């Protein structure tokens, strides 16, 4: 492991020399092909980790977990495109934890540079670096990386299996391979003879695999089309199996109660709980207890009846004290200066008009609709786990460590996830279940968190502060000096996931700020790590979720100070710097009929962010109604290069926007006595049917490289909305959530 850590350390240090050195160092290891985790079925073949065919049919394996983002459908479509099968005729399964399913795209995000200005060289470097994901066991679904990761690999998997099937047919029929074609799961000879893949599979499995050529885009049948989602019928009939729905024989139900101050447990007294009908046991889990019963609700009631003495919080007790520590972050040495163009240090240039503002955003919970849960069965020499998760190898590895078994003796199933949003990358809930299962061997037990436990024991989106200094002159920005202070999610995640002390400049921390694609003569961005230990993690779009609010609210303030239309002001600074981003702005301008003028009672704002490889522009319209301000419509334009499935991309863009909209208006995690003060949805509400805006999404395909879809829709909405509210009311909100400043329709 030491070598891997060394690679990781070099990799995560931002600097081109260190990156190249790191990649070269690891090359011998990562170039070895990963073992195929699929065993060839009787009378069939597992051609590669993604395609398995036997007499019963064709099975495709999705390497990324399905948490609603549609990746299972699109990954399968990529294979089917080359394999020539119809999605309705195949089964799509979730890949088990295996190196073959590592995420090669995720680490590409740690490259130096702003991302949007990457040339072909940097992208090639990104792919080299990406293979380190295998070394780091990063079978992770996150970072909006599933399609970047799978685009070529899945098509190759389909094509190589297709060629092997043609080889087998050629041998059997005595017909030249070049004369054979494939269609709908069959190899077809010139005389019309059709051989089903299912009957050729066993022979095809004996053929040598060659690296085939991929079809050009002009021949694509599925890619770029709206494919019917493979999970839809099951989700419309209540038959889709999620983590909480598994029912192994003899299952017991358990409820968790963990320290709301996130430290240890001094003692607990279970006497009262144990007298409750249906309760079968109460177990200490270190910093939590679990009650086991014949019913989850009974277990939850009994968990409340356990008398527990908790340890104190390892962070300040109150929200204000926590933010005072974040403010102190600005007094420390900057963790990073990821952008330093011109001379921002000397302040506003002579003759310019200075603009200054400070911004604040709260901690946020993920609040996925399916509360956290994991089922585990420990039998002494084996552990079986069912856990909806975003990182199968990490979850399996930490569960194995917990019970003292080798990873190969741990089986992890990943059913559908009832939402992830980054929360299910962390594995605390899987580890708790493994710990409990070891205490009650040979009995499968499902450990379910109440909504309250879920909301109060999250790895939160960190609260953050920004200090923005700018200056305008002759209608342009001549200075932008941005500083952000927050806890680092990178540092906490690397420590929790890989026991690795991340050092060096933290690029993720300033994402969507340092790489905001605006050309400004004097432009500096500095990131500060706040010294606070509130548990934090990856929340949909990570730091871009707050940095975009800082960046694009401030762009609006500068535009107004310069006396220029806010949308035109952005374009002026982006057209040359990042034409594809500017095209998104022009698109939402045209879609919304943006004139810069709004009638009384109507406000409009624009927001833009570049994150996870995709530029997204949004225009939002708000109207003053008797019942409060209503967000009436949002226009979105995005460019992720190639939209592999437009309907899924639109759902992600719209859904990402709504997730950010809910947070911008309503959501805030606060602390008192070291405990989170929000318990359930009434304290942490979201956009609902009657408060949902109309949404219109346009997809541009101007970028040369694939960008993400799941996260980039989230960051621009908070600034777009704050800017629209300024247009409506003349009040500039520099703090989220916005319902602290404005009365919204409720």
């Amino acid at each position: 492991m030491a070598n891997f850590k060394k690679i990781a350390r070099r990799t995560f240090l931002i600097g081109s020399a260190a990156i190249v050195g790191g990649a070269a160092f690891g090359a011998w290891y990562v170039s070895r092909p990963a073992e195929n985790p699929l065993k060839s079925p009787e009378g069939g073949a597992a051609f590669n980790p993604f395609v398995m065919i036997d007499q019963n049919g064709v099975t495709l394996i999705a390497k990324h977990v399905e948490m609603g983002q549609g990746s299972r459908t699109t990954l399968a479509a990529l294979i089917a495109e080359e394999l020539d099968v119809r999605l309705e005729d195949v089964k799509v399964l979730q890949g088990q934890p295996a190196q073959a399913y590592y995420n090669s795209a995720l680490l590409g995000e740690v490259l130096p540079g702003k991302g949007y200005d990457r040339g072909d060289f940097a992208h090639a470097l990104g792919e080299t670096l990406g293979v380190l994901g295998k070394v780091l066991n990063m079978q992770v679904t996150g970072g909006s990386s599933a399609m970047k990761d799978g685009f070529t690999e899945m098509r190759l998997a389909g094509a190589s299996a297709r060629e092997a099937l043609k080889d087998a047919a050629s041998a059997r029929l005595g017909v030249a391979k070049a004369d054979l074609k494939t269609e709908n799961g069959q190899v077809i000879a010139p005389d019309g003879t059709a051989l089903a893949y299912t009957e050729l599979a066993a022979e095809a499995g004996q053929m040598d695999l060659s690296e085939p050529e991929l079809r050009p885009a002009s021949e694509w049948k599925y890619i770029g089309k709206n494919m019917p989602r493979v999970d839809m019928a099951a989700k419309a009939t209540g038959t889709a199996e999620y983590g909480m729905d598994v029912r192994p024989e003899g299952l017991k139900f358990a409820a968790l109660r963990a320290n709301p101050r996130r430290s240890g447990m001094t003692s607990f007294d279970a006497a009262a709980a144990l007298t409750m009908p249906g309760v079968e046991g109460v177990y200490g889990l270190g910093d939590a207890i679990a009650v086991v019963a014949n019913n989850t609700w009974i277990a939850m009631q009994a968990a409340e009846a356990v008398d527990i003495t908790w340890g104190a919080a390892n962070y300040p007790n109150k929200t204000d004290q926590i933010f005072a520590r974040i403010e102190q972050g600005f007094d420390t040495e900057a963790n990073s200066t990821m952008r330093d163009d011109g001379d921002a240090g000397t302040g506003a240039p002579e003759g310019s008009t200075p603009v200054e503002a400070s911004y604040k955003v709260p901690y946020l919970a993920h609040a996925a609709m399916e509360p956290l849960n994991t089922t585990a069965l420990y039998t002494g020499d084996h552990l079986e786990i069912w856990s909806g998760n975003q990182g199968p190898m990490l979850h399996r590895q930490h569960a194995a460590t917990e019970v003292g078994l080798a990873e190969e003796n741990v089986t992890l199933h990943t059913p559908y996830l009832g939402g992830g949003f980054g929360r299910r990358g962390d594995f605390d809930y899987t580890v708790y279940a493994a710990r409990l299962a070891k205490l009650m061997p040979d009995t499968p037990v499902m450990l379910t968190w109440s909504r309250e436990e879920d909301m109060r024991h999250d790895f939160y989106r960190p609260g953050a502060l920004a200090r923005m200094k700018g200056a305008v002159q002759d209608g342009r920005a001549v200075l932008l000096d941005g500083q952000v202070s927050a806890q680092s999610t990178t540092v906490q995640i690397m420590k929790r996931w890989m026991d690795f002390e991340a050092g060096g400049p933290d690029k993720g921390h300033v994402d969507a700020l340092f790489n905001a694609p605006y050309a400004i003569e004097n432009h500096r961005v500095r990131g500060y790590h706040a010294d606070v230990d509130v548990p934090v993690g990856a929340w949909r779009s990570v730091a871009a979720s707050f940095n975009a609010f800082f960046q694009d609210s401030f762009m609006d303030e500068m535009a107004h100070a310069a006396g220029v239309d806010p949308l035109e002001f952005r374009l002026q600074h982006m057209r040359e710097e990042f034409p594809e981003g500017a095209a998104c702005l022009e698109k939402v301008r045209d879609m919304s009929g943006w004139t810069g003028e709004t009638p009384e009672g109507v406000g409009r704002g624009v927001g833009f962010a570049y994150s996870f490889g995709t530029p997204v522009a949004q225009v939002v319209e708000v109207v003053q109604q008797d019942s409060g301000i209503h967000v009436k419509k949002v226009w979105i334009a995005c460019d992720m290069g190639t939209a592999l499935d437009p309907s899924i991309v639109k759902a992600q863009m719209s859904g990402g926007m709504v997730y950010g909209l809910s947070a911008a208006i309503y959501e805030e995690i606060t602390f008192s006595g070291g405990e989170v003060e929000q318990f359930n949805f009434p304290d942490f509400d979201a956009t609902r049917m009657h408060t949902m805006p109309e949404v219109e999404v346009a997809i541009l395909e101007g970028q040369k490289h694939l960008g993400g879809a799941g996260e980039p829709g989230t960051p621009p909405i908070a600034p777009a909305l704050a800017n629209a509210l300024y247009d409506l009311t003349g009040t500039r909100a520099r703090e989220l959530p916005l319902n602290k400043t404005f009365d919204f329709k409720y």
Partner: protein
Amino acid sequence: MATRLTVNGKTLETDLPEDVPLLWVLRDEFNMTGTKFGCGVSACGACTVHIDGESQRSCQVRLGDIWGEVTTIEGLGTPDNMAVLQQAWVDHQVAQCGWCQSGQIMQAASLLQQNPKPTDQDIDDAMQGNLCRCGTYPRIRAAIHDAASKIGG
């Protein structure tokens, strides 16, 4: 003492205490997992079922208080024989993560029973208790209108 109830036309029996909510009787006792747990406090609608044809939050109805026949998502239709509303959900590709959709569909089914041609305002009023963190609301709205037009002929 055993309690009897009728779920999707079948009579079922359980020895669970009478204060256990219907949600947890369905899920953990009868293994009918189509009805989902989201909040436990009637704030999200994921657990919506019908009792005598009317939508109810099953996390708030105690076993001892069930006053009529229960219908769950499993009773509405199956993958091979979907209700019109469920087919509309598929046609409009509504679900993302899908956890809330059983409740959304049961709530919408109840709305259509009472109001076969709901307006957008009717949909707002009927559906606002059903939370979706993926933000599928526009497609839910379209699917309800579509199903209404098909049911109405």
